[in-house]
């Protein structure tokens, strides 16, 4: 196995912003900041570009605009106090981080055995709903970057119907703060399953139209096929996961490979595509929407109606957890998310570190894909990689 060939890295001294010896700089080169204030940027981040015409010569990712120091803040909060803060790590998809915090501390405290059956099912339900709503949002964002307006209007609205379900179940539209230690915070409301089914039907009914607008559209095909190809040999070496990996035709999915919650009992397939370009990634996401709907329907059918949804908790104000360290992972819409959790026997976390797929996607991969890219494709590339700045800098 060959060590990665890193001749493509920017031969550039970042401190002095001058090229390294051996790198030539074209006098026609123009420096351009893409973001943080730009309608096409995925969140509050920026890419510093060097252009020749509209072709990118090289670029550097800059993050830190959303840095809140979560990891530091959680080190000085009691375990239960970390729970409301953790969902802010990834704004669009808060449930994954909530689950990771809960499961990592449950594992270290031995509470994991006590999580009741219904709590597990509700967690699975919320996680899958969350994946579905983010995938819908990214589908819309993907075509939105190419100036197409109809599909985003539809997908955001469909997502909003799912947010209504979240609001009904968890009490919040965006920050659900629902999955907590020992299970979840509230039971299903009466009639929730029917309403969620209706929402799923609504989404499903719209999917063929979305196909026509997106995947079958000649404009979209022209803009995305063969654009921003992630080479297959980067997959293992850079730790690529999620739709970006599955668009290379590699069927890896944390839900199946490292079974957690109730996923082993559910029937689902790992959606893949070939081509590894933006189009392939969109195809994977489109297939995952259908697959998520399929999974949620199974969950609603298989979930027990009665029973406790949360384990009996100790006094959360004085809860201490024995010293230890662990790594837990879960499949978010972007790929594998993981928490490194270190405790030291006190009532606070010693160290927590979020490992997210955006971390390499937005920096290592993006910077190496930039040379030669047309600047018009940059937004679409970033959305297809799902670079999520709050997750990178936390």
């Amino acid at each position, binding site marked *: 196995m060959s060590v990665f060939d890193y001749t493509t890295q920017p031969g550039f001294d970042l401190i002095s912003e001058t090229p390294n010896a051996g790198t030539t700089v074209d006098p026609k080169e123009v420096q351009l900041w893409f973001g943080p204030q730009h309608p096409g940027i995925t969140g509050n981040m920026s890419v510093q570009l060097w252009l020749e015409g509209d072709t990118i010569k090289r670029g550097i990712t800059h993050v830190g605009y959303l840095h809140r120091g979560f990891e530091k803040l959680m080190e000085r*909060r*009691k375990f*239960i*106090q*970390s*729970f*409301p*803060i953790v969902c802010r790590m990834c704004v669009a998809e808060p449930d994954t981080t909530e689950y990771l915090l809960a499961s990592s501390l449950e594992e270290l405290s031995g509470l994991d055995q006590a999580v009741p059956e219904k709590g597990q099912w509700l967690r699975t339900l919320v996680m899958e709903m969350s994946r579905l709503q983010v995938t819908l949002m990214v589908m819309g964002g993907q075509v939105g970057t190419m100036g197409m307006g*109809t599909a985003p209007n539809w997908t955001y*609205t469909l997502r*909003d119907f799912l947010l*209504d379900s979240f*609001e*009904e*179940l*968890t*009490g*919040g539209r965006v*920050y659900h*703060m629902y999955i907590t230690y020992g*299970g979840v*915070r*509230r*039971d299903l*409301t009466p009639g929730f399953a029917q309403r969620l089914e209706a929402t799923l039907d609504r989404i499903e009914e719209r999917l063929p*139209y979305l*196909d*026509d*607008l997106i995947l*079958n*559209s*000649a*404009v979209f*095909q*022209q803009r995305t096929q063969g654009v921003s190809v992630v080479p297959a040999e980067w997959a293992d070496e850079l730790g690529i996961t999620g739709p970006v990996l599955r668009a290379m035709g590699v069927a890896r999915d944390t839900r199946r490979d490292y079974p957690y919650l109730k996923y082993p009992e559910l029937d689902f397939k790992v959606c893949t595509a070939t081509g590894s370009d933006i189009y392939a990634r969109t195809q994977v996401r489109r297939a995952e929407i259908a697959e998520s709907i399929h999974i949620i329907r199974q969950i609603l059918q298989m979930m027990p109606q009665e029973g*406790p*949804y*949360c384990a*009996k*908790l*100790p*006094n*959360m*104000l*004085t*809860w201490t957890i024995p010293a230890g360290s662990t790594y837990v992972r879960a499949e978010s819409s972007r790929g594998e998310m993981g928490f490194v959790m270190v405790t030291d026997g006190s009532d606070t976390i010693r160290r927590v570190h979020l490992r997210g797929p955006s971390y390499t996607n937005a920096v290592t991969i993006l910077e190496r894909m930039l040379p030669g890219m047309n600047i018009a494709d940059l937004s679409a590339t970033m959305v297809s990689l799902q670079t999520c700045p709050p997750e990178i800098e936390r």
Partner: protein
Amino acid sequence: MSLKNVIAPFSAWARAVQKPFTVPTAETFRPGADRYRGWHINDTEQCIGCGTCSDICQNSAIDMKPVDEPNKGDSGLRPLVDYGRCCWCALCVDVCPSGSLGLSSNYIWIDRDPDVFRYIPGVDRKEWDSDEKGWRKDDGFNLVDPDRVPMPMMMPVEDRVKTWAEVVLGYTEAEARAEAARCVECGLCVAACPAHMHIPDYIAAIRDGHYDVAVNHIYDNNPLPEMCGKVCTRRCEDVCSIGVNGDPLAIRWLKRFATEQFSDLSAVLSHEQPQIGTGKSVAVIGGGPGGLTTAFYLAVRGFKVTVFEALPQVGGATFFGIPKYRFPLGSLEKQIKLMTDWGVEIKTNHKVEPDEFKQLQQDYDAIYIGTGLLKPSSLRAEGEDLPGVMPAIEMLIDHHLGKTVEVGQHVVVVGGGNVAIDAARISRRLGAEVTIAYRRRLEDMPADYEEIEDAEAEGVHLMTQNIPLRVEQLPGGRLDFIWGPAEMISEGGGRPRPKLIEGIENHLAVDKVIVAIGQKPDLRWLPADVAEQISNSWGGITCDENGMTAAPGVFAGGDLVNSTADAISAIADGLKAVDGIINYLGLGTKP
């Protein structure tokens, strides 16, 4: 690129004629979901001001603000929410021990002034105060532990009546720490405790395993903690915030656990009190908890303190009034030993006479009276002076002084207080069948509910709502206890009063009738003029806020003064007298 793909997007036009999804404008906004987490509401009647919401808030968004003077069981504080901090996680709602806090489903609050986003829910009126919807506490999700760690008891129950050994076995270390971890450190118990013990502090120390620190906190204002740890009436647990929707913290058992960890208390206790009392002397008449408290804390300050006790053993009601299966003599002696080690002089079998009292007034700088209530109240029913009808207090004293108490085969105990329960359980251990006859309902019984449960478990039969009519002699030395049923009637406010249902007479053949319907003060040992000066209408003693009676230099406390008949109030009176005596002698900082 096929023609099909060029045409495909135009399929979207099919949707153009359909109804849009757009929500209406501001005048008719969608209401929040039933569980929506909007602005706070608070039922200020239910709220106890424990501050747990403020403790759990990771945003430090909640301040506790004084809104009125604290009562027992209510700190007088109410949460003020800063919406410049709040993140609507609703942990405050889920942790709220009283269940008073909630979130409404309203979600729109707009202003140009950033300083308005703060208010005290329930106190500052808001339009969403009466919102039925919104996030509320749910029984299935508890952030505090409502279930007490069960106390190990002597098992099986049948064995308990065969022995005088302690029934309550005490927590193990793991159990005690687990129980201590349930505390939310609100401090309402501090208000409820007559002595204002540092309860949250010692519970926190127990939780962290620092038992020496805990004992130092405990001894800071209670010199008889092992007694309190076993038999206290524990008003603290009545107001415990966890107890509002769960089992209150076992504060009593935790205190017991901490003090039991050390057999030699002087090894772990220390004090740094200045010896302000050197050269001054104080006489304490009556070696009950109040007197011993005064004696101990004055001796710590260098006073020469002498305790005069009529019985052969100090401890007062804690000695003769509490059965040994609840409070073994060894525990009492351990605490008395610390007092004598730290300089308290104790004279037992020394009953003060009127003339001697005059002499004590001459010899000592101050006198503390804590002789308690010893004269039994009468049954006020025909046949009360028959042989076989005896006051419970005499029975308890005789029993604890080692005299033989004859109870026969079947005993009826009249009364519903702790003394009645103790007399009943002692009689049970002496081999009798026991019936308790009480005028009111079971829930009206002043006795500790756990004591009542234990008594029932030990086979004591409880008979409520009955009024003794008379006692008659039966042939063969037995007695006929005749009683009539009562109904409870409420008049005006106040608690319901039992009223005899006329015309019904029930008979119960018993060997003894033990009367436990209270005691009265007995001040005949005082010189008549002093007694006249300091006593009040019911025969007790009235004190000012410093614990001093109308006679200068004569202080009093305990049952004689407060008539609540529990040890911790006597200890509180003793503490008050410590300050009073120091100030009276001009040694304190207070003018």
